[in-house]
């Protein structure tokens, strides 16, 4: 009998081992409405400096900590923040901002004109290399006049006000990258790398104070375990879940809110490596990849097809017709490959950040679609950190599937990336026609003309097939029924201050 007992033990053991592989839960979050745990797919960047951080996932959190003279609201309009009113001169060259009284930094000191000048200076200084330096290169002069900040431009710039959303920081804090101090509704408390970031409500906030006292941002880099984390109660809120994940949560204690993510999901191609140096090869991929099928297979039909680096929230800059440049045409794709010297296809590797399930799913469908024209796409999952250092900064990749957004709601912020010598041009796209159109767009003072030039840029990106454009993802947000009030923004922002407990 002893042997049988052992046998049962063995069966039990191997069964539990498999179950253990399946279930990696987390610890339960407290019930108190004074606290919320928000899941985020990746750790924030090393630097929390509002003028240096470049990843969308970092900026959407920093939105809660820093504020500019103006800030966007959920309609995409700019509303006064650290400044309580502003005016623009008739010639469009002089901007005057009046500082709001009683705005305090998280360290307790008042916001002064010097702090504002310091914050602008960090970006406007000719030697500045911050993420916003190019947008500020047009600034001729900035000075304080009592409680007013007066900024003069070299030439009229219809998008300039957007640049005034940059975070205002105190001039005497030198370690802003590790010790963020802003004026936003939440203040930074601490962070544990790869684990969490802790925020606390700023009690001296000038405006409507946040509802929830303590916020834990929990890093959930395993895309597969998000549903478990939510159902298990260790996470109360997660933005950008897939429709399959949403279906699991509907019957449970979660509300699913729908909006759009406001980014351009595409298979970004490294235009500087063979065979993507050849425009025909890139076009062939565009003809072979069917965004509609991707949206239907992996996203339950939710998503907006895109044809270029621009999404609908941009309003007048978005051109719907560009999406029709490439309709699925396998024969044409094969033809183009033959002309380019690849009659039997080729193989390449798609690097996908492993923490973004939507991008992994998309890459899988793309790989399957490309098989039809004889092109083999291998998928390689990489950690977010190595994606950032190898793919985005190092540009060491062939293709990658990610979503790209704009740091501000301007066409310039969205499209400048693809000019030949932009430091953000991680796809190495080089086109003289594009550079010319872009330069025309930023040098003209006529808004209507500028819009036309920006549209031309978008057409060039599509016609020269810089990337294989796919969609603006539908954003589904899972929020525990204990909370309400989440608002979607037309930019990549997670406004925690609006979330409140259900009474």
């Amino acid at each position, binding site marked *: 009998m002893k042997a049988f007992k052992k046998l049962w033990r063995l069966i039990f053991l191997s069964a539990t081992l498999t179950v253990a592989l*399946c279930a990696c839960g987390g610890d339960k979050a407290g019930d108190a409405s004074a606290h919320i745990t928000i899941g985020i797919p990746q750790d924030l960047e090393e630097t929390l400096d509002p003028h240096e951080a470049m990843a969308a996932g970092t900026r959407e959190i920093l939105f809660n900590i820093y504020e500019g003279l103006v800030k966007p609201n959920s309609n995409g309009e700019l509303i006064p923040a650290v400044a309580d009113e502003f005016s623009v001169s008739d010639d469009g060259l002089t901007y005057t901002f009046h500082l709001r009284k009683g705005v305090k930094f998280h360290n307790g000191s008042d916001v002064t004109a010097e702090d504002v000048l310091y914050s602008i200076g960090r970006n406007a200084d000719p030697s500045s290399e911050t993420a916003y330096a190019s947008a500020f290169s047009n600034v001729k002069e900035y000075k304080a006049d009592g409680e007013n900040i007066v900024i003069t431009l070299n030439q009229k710039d219809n998008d300039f006000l957007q640049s005034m959303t940059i975070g205002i920081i105190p001039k005497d804090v030198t370690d802003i990258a590790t010790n963020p101090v802003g004026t936003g509704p939440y203040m930074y408390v601490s962070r544990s790398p790869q684990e969490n970031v802790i925020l606390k409500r700023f009690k001296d906030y000038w405006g409507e104070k946040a509802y929830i006292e303590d916020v834990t941002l929990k890093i959930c880099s395993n895309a*597969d*375990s998000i*549903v478990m984390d939510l159902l298990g109660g260790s996470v109360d809120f997660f933005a950008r879940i897939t429709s399959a994940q949403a279906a*699991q949560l509907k019957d449970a204690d979660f509300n699913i809110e729908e909006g759009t993510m406001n980014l351009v999901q595409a298979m970004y191609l490294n235009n500087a490596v063979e065979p993507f140096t050849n425009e025909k090869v890139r076009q062939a991929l565009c003809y072979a990849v069917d965004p509609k099928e991707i949206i239907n297979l992996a996203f339950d039909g939710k998503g907006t097809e895109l044809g270029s680096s621009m999404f609908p929230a941009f309003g007048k800059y978005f051109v719907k017709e560009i999406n029709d440049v490439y309709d699925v045409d396998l024969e044409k794709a094969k033809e183009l490959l033959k002309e380019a010297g690849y009659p039997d296809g080729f193989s390449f590797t798609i690097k996908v950040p492993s923490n973004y399930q939507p991008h992994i799913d998309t890459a899988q469908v793309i790989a399957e679609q490309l098989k039809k024209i004889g092109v083999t796409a291998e998928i390689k999952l990489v950690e977010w950190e190595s994606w950032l250092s190898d793919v985005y900064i190092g540009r060491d990749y062939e293709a990658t599937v990610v979503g790209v957004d704009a740091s501000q709601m301007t066409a310039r912020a969205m499209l400048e990336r693809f000019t030949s010598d932009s430091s953000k041009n991680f796809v190495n796209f080089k086109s003289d026609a594009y550079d010319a159109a872009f330069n025309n767009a930023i040098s003209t003072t006529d808004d209507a003309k500028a819009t036309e030039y920006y549209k031309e840029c978008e057409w060039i990106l599509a016609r020269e097939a810089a990337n294989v454009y796919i969609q603006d993802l539908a954003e589904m947000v899972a929020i525990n029924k204990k909370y309400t009030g989440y608002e979607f923004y037309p930019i990549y922002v997670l406004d925690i201050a609006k979330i409140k407990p259900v009474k």
Partner: protein
Amino acid sequence: MDKTKTRNVKFILGLTLTGIILVMMIAGIVHTPYDPMAMDLSAKLEGVSFKHIMGCDNFGRDIFSRVLVGVRETMFVAAAVVFIGTFVGIIIGTVTGYFGGWVDEILMRFNDAVLAFPSVLLALLVIGIMGGGTKALIIALGIAFVPSFARIIRGEVLRIRNLDYIQCVRLYGASHLRIIVVHILPNLRTVLLSSVLIGFNNAVLAEAGMSYLGMGAQPPYPSLGLMLSEAQGVIYSNPWNAVFPGLVIVIMILGFSLLSDSLEKKT
């Protein structure tokens, strides 16, 4: 109850389960009912039916076909890992066990250091350096498996080396190489057999675990661990997606454990 009888039950059960797995593996190599990578919108998350006996996943891919290929993948990785482990393990084990001295000291202390390190962490480290993928996984797990094999072989060689007949051969003037290859290695087979079977089991679990963590097979290529991990997203609405790959892992491990258990006692 009679001891031999339970042993026989174990043996037969183990053989049956292992047989099932082997049949699945061969089917995975020869012919699967569907292309394991082909996506089909109309079959998305379809339940168990005669057409798809294990249902379909989120992309409408046939899970049964994917399991068959997944078994093949897991068996291949496990076999390769055990092969690397035994091959390097035998070399290190015999050299250290037979010659002793400072070579023994250095190699075995190094061995201890590797052994003291958790094998999954070690594998993660190697994969981190080499980047993911099946090849990296095999090398990573192979390295992690060497020390335990080396230790077992060394102990056995140490024992055999001092037996009378080896002394005898040495007096006849046989070379070291001849003694090792002709007189020692063949005597290692009993120890080897059971440790290979146990090692194989550990390798299966390690492969599933690493793929689950996204370190092994890369999507869309099916591997049992990866399928489990993918199924986790739909575990409440479509539990079958997780149950079948999990069940196959259980059968695999149980079969080999029973087999090694019964063989160990027979010899």
